[in-house]
């Protein structure tokens, strides 16, 4: 085999897939196109309706969005879109990190210790179908309308999801994979860290993605009910004063933040699991 033949031969012989750059760019452009089409439909509908309280036009919404990025709303004691976004993101991050760590520990100990599993399983089973927002009034009674109640809300929403994902992912690691590691000479501890936990990482990250979606639902609801800042609070205020363009601005902001966080977790998944890399 000469040197020039090598690259082609490698993919033919090894079955190693060539990189799929072009395809992923196609997906990006199709996504942009879908967004643009949505904008066009929105604009046509807005022009036909002709009432900016019911449905503002796209340029008007965009102008409002840009304006309130640096202008506080409401004007007295209000905050800018950027500040609200930072407040909401901070709450999410604090609750999400705490909930994920606790869920990882709980899920791992459930997978490892039978007594813990038998005790925690029914609790998680009862807790999981409960919508976290049902706890908002209780958390306000306990912790007030400050940051603690928000973080606690996210925490209790994230915890069961990550716990179940961790437990499921650890249970799904085949015993033979652990046997393979042991018979290659790895100690039980090395096998635990480098095979069992490692094999569970993609499942845990998938659980984190689901939990992140739920966390945004909870935080916006909480900020609408009891808060003095955050994107949910902004949307509610804008609604009270029929500031429809600002409502859309807030929603768009949530969409962007949610997409960004999911993108980060997807990136993490790609790093952890070569089978999803393309």
């Amino acid at each position, binding site marked *: 085999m000469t040197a020039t033949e090598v690259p082609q*031969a*490698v993919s*033919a*012989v*090894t*079955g*190693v*897939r060539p990189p799929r750059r072009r395809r992923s760019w196609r997906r990006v452009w199709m996504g942009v196109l879908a967004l643009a089409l949505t904008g066009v439909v929105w604009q046509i509908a807005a022009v036909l309706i002709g009432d900016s309280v019911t449905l503002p036009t796209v340029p008007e919404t965009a102008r409002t969005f840009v304006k309130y990025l640096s202008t506080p709303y409401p004007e007295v004691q209000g905050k800018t879109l950027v500040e609200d976004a930072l407040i909401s993101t901070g709450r999410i991050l604090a609750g999400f990190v705490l909930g994920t760590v606790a869920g990882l520990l709980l899920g791992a100990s459930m997978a490892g210790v039978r007594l813990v599993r038998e005790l925690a399983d029914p609790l998680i089973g009862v807790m999981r179908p409960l919508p976290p927002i049902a706890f908002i009034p209780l958390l306000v009674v306990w912790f007030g309308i400050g940051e603690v109640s928000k973080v606690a809300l996210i925490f209790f929403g994230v915890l069961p999801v990550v716990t179940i994902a961790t437990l499921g992912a650890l249970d799904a690691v*085949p015993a*033979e*994979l652990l*046997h*393979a*590691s*042991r*018979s*290659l*000479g*790895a*100690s039980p501890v*090395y*096998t635990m860290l*480098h*095979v069992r936990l*490692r*094999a569970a*990482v993609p499942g845990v990250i998938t659980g984190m993605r689901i939990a992140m979606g739920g966390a945004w639902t909870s935080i916006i609801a909480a900020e609408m009910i009891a808060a003095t800042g955050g994107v949910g609070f902004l949307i509610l205020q804008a609604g009270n004063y029929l500031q429809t363009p600002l409502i859309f601005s807030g929603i768009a902001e949530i969409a962007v933040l949610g997409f960004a966080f999911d993108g980060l977790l997807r990136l993490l998944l790609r790093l*952890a*699991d*070569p*089978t999803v890399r393309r």
Partner: protein
Amino acid sequence: MSLLRQRRPVVGTGSGRLLDQEPADAAGVRLREVSKTFSRRRRPGRTALDGVSLDVEPGEFLCLLGPSGCGKSTLLNILAGFVPADSGEVLVGGRPVTGPGPDRGVLFQTPMLFSWLTTWQNVLYGPKARGTLTPQVHEEAERLLETVGLADARDAYPHELSGGMRHRAAFARVLINRPGVLLMDEPFGALDAITRAAMQRFLLELWQQQRMTIVFVTHDVEEATLLGDRVCVLSGPPGGTKAVIDIDLRRPRSYDDTETLEFVNAKRRIREVLER
């Protein structure tokens, strides 16, 4: 399947690659009255093995043959040290088996590669886990990848490999530990017929050169006849040794031998014991 054709593993092509690496010392296996019962809640346990005795010579290729549920996999798991025997004596290389270890290489029904590691990292897993990663080990890993025909796939992840390539990667991952015994649990059972024939040929050529002891579990009479020096037919369930049949077909064997009269006769002898 043209994949396997295009780049055949270099084992047995006369290049002698494996010969410049000292062959591992083949270990013998000795089983005496080995019994195993799996307990079930509030019911009498299921006896998987009922007093199995068996000797495997160093460097011998022994096939364990029997119907499903006869305990042949259990026997292999006991040899590998994954489950303890309830009673009886289990010796590999003269030492009692107390747990899994790199002196006994295990190949499973599926390759059980670590999906997050490349072929190269998979092969080096054992030495790395034991903290014995040296430049010599790297060289040997390179040689082994060449031996199993995966030199070009060294940075590929398992999901990017074909079925046969994954099995060959699993071979390399085990062989880097220089095990005295290879324990194989229906390793080609999940492969398609053509890949399977290629893997059998690969295994025969590998064994012809390395001469490690092999205990090979199968339920395929033809496979057992083609590969084994002896075939141990297990009865069951519960499993016990029914008969140990010598296969005196000439070595080295190849796939063409399956059409000879001696081969067919050997197969018939095994089948008669199975149906007894």
